[in-house]
Every structure is written in structure tokens, then in C-alpha cells.
């Protein structure tokens, strides 16, 4: 399989702030690759370097076989980039924005129609609306369309779904799936852990470093401690109480239940279920149900960053 991106030891600092502290990874051609992590983790700096918009302090990166610094002018027309902040012209209409980005790269909407059809067909009913007056989800679809209109071979999408509602997020990821089926390499970043599962592979990013790079399934499976879900009426007080239990490594809210991760590696899950049930019962909690939980990428992220109650702030 051919390689779309190779990064080797990328570093970047801004004054005293270290944005990237030696980042290395590779993305295969045709892959849907995700960088998952919070704001301020270094994702945006990394994307700017890969999109030829910023020069790293150290390390090197190749995109489609071209060096992002030395071969910048050869590379740029082949790269589609969607920045994290909405960066289209709010006073231009949907069609005018798209025409503008097409003309910058010497093409037209009509010539690229087949390429952008899956997305443009959703935008066309609003073709004359000002971009600034679109809903959050539609703005992101327009931005994606503008990043695609010059027929790039690879897409870099920096947090395309931040601040977008849950339904529009799903629709946006469906579009990324369609692009991938068409052979496009897509590199995307997101703060939403649930979106990690829609990628072929993900890298977990925290403070300028990659904590792990693998398939979402293998990352989730790397969780190496007993993990149980606790269903209880008074979650807040159960949370505070469970943290005092002798073998708690981390206790945190997780959707409708609490997650309890045990600190011991050599104890059976059934034993932990029994101990946690007994501990809560002995502290007067009623209607408690404890069951083994399947670890997710989010559990792994939390474990690698440090337990919520162990961190200073």
C-alpha cells in the first residue's frame, strides 16, 4: 500500500509553549485517519504544517511523496485543507464562495460537478444564501465542498464537527465515508471520542505528543485493568464514595452510569463486580447494579492522561 503522509519527529514551539514535542506517524493512501484529542493539544499546529502553511522547528514531513517545506508549491494544489475556524466569506453566497475557491485553483464548479456532487447536492437548495446565514452543520458542509473543489488527492480537516449538533455530526461523517470509498485519503481531527470509531486508525493527541496510534478497536482493547459500569440512583455521591474504595484507580461518570477502573491487574472481573457491589451496599446505596464494561477509546484516553481524581486540576 502506498504511503500518503510520513511525519518524523515534528517539533514546533511558540515562545515558551511547546505545541508539538516530536510527533511521528504515517498515513496510508486511501485511509481515513483521525487525530483525537482536546483543544490545545497541538492538532491545529500539526495540520498547518501538513497543509504547507507553517514550517516546523525540527523534524520533517512528506505528503504524497513531497516535502512539506521544500516542495511546497508542487504540493499545495494537491492538498485540500479545511481550517478549524470557519474561514469562508460570510457575505458571499454559497455559490459565490464555491466559485471563488474554484477560480483560485483555475477551475469552475461545472467542471468539478461530478466530484463534489454528493456534498453539493445538499447545498444546492441554499445556493443563493449568504454563507454567514447558514446553520453550523451546513457551514461545515460548504467548507468541505470548498476544500474539495480543486480535486485534491488528500484532505486535511481540522475539527470539522466542533460545535456542530449530534445529527449534523453524523451526516458529516457519512460524507467522509463516501469520500473514502471514492479513494480519497482523509486526515481529520476531533475532540469527540465517539468519532474515533469511524476512523480506520486514530492517534490520541495530548500536549503535543501522540499517546497511541492504532485502530480504534485495538486502542480500546489495550485497556489493561478491570473495568465495570455502575448503575445507581445517586450518581454524584456514589462517585465520591467509590473513590474512597481501597482499589479504585479511577471513577468517573460515563453516560448513564459510572465507570470504575480497578488499580489491580491480577484480579478477575467477577471479583471486582462483587467487591464494588458490596462496597456501595455497605455505604447505604440502594438499587445498585454493577456489570463488566467494554472499554472504549475514551476510557483509554482517560487512563493514559491520568485518572480524573488524581490530576491536580
Amino acid at each position: 500500500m502506498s504511503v500518503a503522509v510520513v511525519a518524523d519527529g515534528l517539533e514546533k514551539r511558540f515562545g515558551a509553549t511547546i505545541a508539538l514535542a516530536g510527533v511521528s506517524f504515517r498515513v496510508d493512501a486511501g485511509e481515513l485517519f483521525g487525530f483525537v484529542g482536546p483543544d490545545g493539544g497541538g492538532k491545529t499546529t500539526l495540520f498547518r504544517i501538513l497543509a504547507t502553511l507553517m514550517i516546523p522547528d525540527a523534524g520533517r514531513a512528506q505528503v504524497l511523496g513531497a516535502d512539506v517545506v521544500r516542495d511546497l508549491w508542487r504540493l499545495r494544489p494537491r492538498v485540500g485543507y479545511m481550517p478549524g475556524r470557519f474561514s469562508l466569506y460570510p457575505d458571499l453566497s454559497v455559490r459565490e464562495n464555491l466559485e471563488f475557491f474554484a477560480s483560485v485553483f483555475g477551475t469552475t464548479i461545472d467542471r468539478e460537478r461530478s466530484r463534489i456532487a454528493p456534498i453539493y447536492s445538499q447545498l444546492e437548495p441554499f445556493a443563493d444564501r449568504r454563507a454567514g446565514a447558514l446553520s453550523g452543520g451546513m457551514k461545515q458542509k460548504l467548507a468541505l465542498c470548498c476544500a474539495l473543489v480543486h480535486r485534491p488527492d488528500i484532505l486535511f480537516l481540522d475539527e470539522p464537527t466542533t460545535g456542530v449538533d449530534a445529527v449534523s455530526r453524523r451526516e458529516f461523517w457519512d460524507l467522509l465515508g463516501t469520500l473514502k470509498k471514492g479513494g480519497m485519503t482523509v486526515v481529520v481531527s476531533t475532540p469527540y471520542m465517539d468519532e474515533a470509531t469511524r476512523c480506520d486508525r486514530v492517534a490520541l493527541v495530548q500536549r503535543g505528543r501522540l499517546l497511541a496510534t492504532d485502530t480504534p478497536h485495538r486502542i480500546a482493547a489495550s485497556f489493561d485493568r478491570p473495568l465495570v459500569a455502575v448503575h445507581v440512583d445517586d450518581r454524584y455521591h456514589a462517585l465520591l464514595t467509590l473513590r474512597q474504595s481501597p482499589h479504585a484507580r479511577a471513577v468517573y461518570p460515563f453516560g448513564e452510569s459510572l465507570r470504575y477502573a480497578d488499580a489491580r491487574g491480577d484480579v478477575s472481573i467477577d471479583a471486582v463486580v462483587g467487591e464494588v457491589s458490596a462496597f456501595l451496599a455497605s455505604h447505604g446505596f440502594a438499587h445498585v447494579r454493577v456489570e463488566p464494561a467494554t472499554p472504549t477509546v475514551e476510557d483509554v484516553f482517560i487512563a493514559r492522561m491520568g485518572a480524573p481524581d488524581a490530576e491536580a486540576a
Partner: protein
Amino acid sequence: MTARLTPGAPQPAPAIRARDLTRRFGSFVAVDHLTFDVGAGEVFGFLGANGAGKTTAIRMLTGLLAPSGGTATVAGHDVLAEAERVKRAIGYMSQRFSLYEDLTVRENITLYGGIYDLRDREIRERTDRMLARLGLERQADDMVRAIPLGWRQKLAFSVALLHEPRIVFLDEPTSGVDPITRRQFWELIYEAAAAGTTVLVTTHYMDEAEYCDRISIMVSGMIGALGTPGELKREFGVPSIDDLFVRLARPS
């Protein structure tokens, strides 16, 4: 932590009470006869897709926008006739704007204390208490822009509670922060609710919807679902609030 009532007990006045609350912009009805109560000390999730009318509703409930029809009281004050009293009774924090980045942590706290007419001694005492609780003593004289987003959000929440409001409105408070900080933020919410503060919160994280005592999901200016997360999942026969949200927001 909630204000769930025993049957027959006297009902305390709801913290928020909306009756047919409506707002039109020209011919467009952004909020369409909204009727709901939020109990004192409740954590209420106010959900909806972009454009469903959440922001318009919140602007009316916080006394910033006059309703076109209907009524609402917040902390017992009418949002139209007593908008200024509403503003004093509530705290507000949004993801987009909360603190002045070019002021230090301490200056931000002092500024908000002054805006809410706290005395100098109260401001000093509450500032010290807040910094200690957040573990921010050493950053007290740093510019807000220099501290990490997660800490900024926790500080913004504490500042919104500085004047001890009965109700706090949180508009996407956890957007873009890491999973640990999100959870720490929710523990601050639980703590405030346990102390009797009513919390109305919006979020795009559907797992956070499950953390609320009750939620509403707005669809096209109206309430499409209202209840505890457990009740709603049973009523609609869905495994998660995420699935319910998708079903309501995009009826096929």
C-alpha cells in the same frame, strides 16, 4: 442532589417557569409556545439541533430578549417586566465568551464582583476561596489567555457563581475540552446543584445529556421531548439519548 419531591409535600416555586413562551422574527417563529418548569436545585439539560431555537429561548429567559408572546418567570421574576432583577438573580457562562483574556485571573474576578455590586471585602474573601478551591493560587496574577482552556472554563463557571445566583445558565460549557476536564466540569455542576443552585445547561455531547436530572429536546421551536433520560429512553424505546436526538431532529 435534586429537588425531587415527596408526594403531598408543599411544592417550592420552580426556578424557571415558562408558559407559551414565544418569539417571532418577522414571519419566522423561532420559539413556539414553550411551556416547561425547572425545579430548584435541578440540573436541566436544554438540548436541540443548531437552529432549533435554544439560543433564542435562553436569551428570553435571561432577560436579554423580549418575548413576542407568553410569559416566563426566572427566580420568581417576570422576564419582561423585571428583566433587570432576572439578570441579578442568574449567572451565565458560554463557551464563546466568559472571561476577559487580557485581564489576569484576579482582575476578572474583581471585575465581575464589581458588576454585581459585591463589597470589596466580599470580593477579596470570595476570590481567595475560589482560587484555593480551583488550585489556581499560583496563577492568580497570570493573564487569562495564558492558562489552559480547561482551567479557564472551570474559572468561568466559578465566576458565574460569584454573586451566588439561584440559577446558572451554561451554554455549551464543555465544547472542545478533553474528556477528563469535561468530567471535572460536571463535578462542579453537581456540586453547585447539591448546594441548591439550579443549573440549565446546553451541550452537543449526548453522553452529558445522560448526566442531567431532566432534559428537554427542542425541535423547530417546540419541545419535542421532556423528562428524565431514563423515562425518555423507555418512552421512545431507544438505547441512548443520542439515538433519541437523531430521531427527533431528523424525522424520516
